[in-house]
């Protein structure tokens, strides 16, 4: 918001007013928590046992992967040392859950139950279990607002996992579709390609899955191909999200790089 950007003291007004509306917000979540509590407590024992079995099996598979991961990470680090590149350490995360979806139909935003009190900051990347979900745009004491990657005002720099071709994925306003902009007709992108965050915007950490390419259309005479992709994060279903704390996350690039002159 323009005025909010110009006068930074307004940010503290917004933060302070956040304390005022916090009780109402927490009350609004009560029915949701009750419903969750009911469904948790009214599950059949048989179903719980079944779920437990599935989770145990899944855990085993993941454990195995994690074991390999440790050695791979070590190997990766030593290779990077050989290349004298900076090493990438595992990111610190904070688990949060979604308390509300913004009723405003213009935007794709959600509200989470962690806020400034928990160290959340503006620009912080948010993931779910499947991929990149969005970034924090507004922090209140006990809650924060997350702009999802599908919002039409949002763009994230990505690269194709297969060959490293870079592109920018913008939201379309529809939850199940992103669009890659400025992709040349000749670019090596195929349907089914996995797009991961490239970390070039210095806002999102590098290497998290963002979307899979779902369709490519080359129009003769147009300079760019129309590439659609489907977000890997379950934007409309995930209830538990991860807030990522990294050194590079949330850094805003120097102003002269992005502000239009005149």
């Amino acid at each position: 918001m323009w005025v909010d950007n110009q006068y930074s003291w307004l940010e503290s007004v917004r933060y302070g007013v956040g304390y005022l509306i916090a009780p109402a917000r927490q009350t609004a979540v009560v029915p949701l928590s009750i419903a969750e509590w009911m469904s948790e407590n009214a599950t059949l024992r048989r179903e719980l046992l079944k779920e437990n079995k599935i989770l145990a099996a899944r855990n085993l598979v993941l454990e195995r992967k994690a074991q390999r991961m440790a050695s791979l990470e070590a190997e990766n680090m030593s290779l990077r040392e050989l290349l004298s590149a900076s090493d990438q350490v595992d990111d610190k995360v904070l688990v949060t859950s979604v308390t509300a979806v913004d009723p405003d139909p213009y935007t794709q935003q959600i509200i989470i139950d962690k806020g400034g009190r928990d160290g959340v900051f503006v620009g912080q990347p948010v993931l779910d279990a499947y991929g990149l979900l969005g970034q924090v745009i507004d922090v209140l004491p006990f809650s924060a607002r997350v702009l999802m990657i599908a919002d039409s005002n949002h763009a994230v720099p990505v690269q194709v996992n297969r060959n490293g071709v870079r592109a920018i994925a913008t939201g379309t306003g529809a939850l199940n579709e992103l669009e890659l902009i400025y992709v040349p007709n000749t670019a090596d992108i195929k349907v089914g390609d996995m797009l991961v965050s490239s970390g070039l915007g210095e806002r999102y950490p590098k290497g998290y899955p963002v979307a899979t390419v779902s369709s490519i259309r080359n129009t003769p005479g147009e300079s760019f191909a129309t590439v659609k992709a489907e977000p890997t994060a379950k934007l409309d279903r995930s209830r538990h999200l991860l807030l990522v704390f990294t050194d590079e996350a949330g850094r805003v690039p120097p102003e002269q790089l992005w502000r239009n002159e005149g």
Partner: protein
Amino acid sequence: MKLHSIAYVLLALFVAFVLEHFQLPEVIDWFQPAWVMLVVTAAVLAAPSVFGLWLAIPLGLMLDVEKNTLLGLHVILVVMHIYLLQLLYRRMYLFNVLQQSAVLFLMVLAEQIIHYWAMAVMREDMMPVMLLAPALTSAVLWPWMYVLVYRSLQRMESA
């Protein structure tokens, strides 16, 4: 104005903020009524000398933070709402509930339009909007609000 009726208005405003935060199913997304404006209307009609324009600053700021709009946009909208009510309240007393609903419909619609203008200035993309929907649901809900808030306040004051 008695202390417990002020407490009642505060409670009603609290409930209005809770409802404002509730999400509706996607199909009726657009029909989110202006809950806070409804409560403000009832409160101002019940005690126009107490609930003046000063109410706009705290309520407007809280609405701005709740809806993440430009800080001050809802202050202007609430100011407009209360100002119109302060002009009209003597007339509103003579109206029956349906006529009051109609007035409220126009007021909420005007606020929706101003809200939309501000958004259109701030954002590049123009999206299809249903400005009529919240005004419509607000007007439909007014009779209940009239009984629940306005009438109870009157009863409290006269008791």
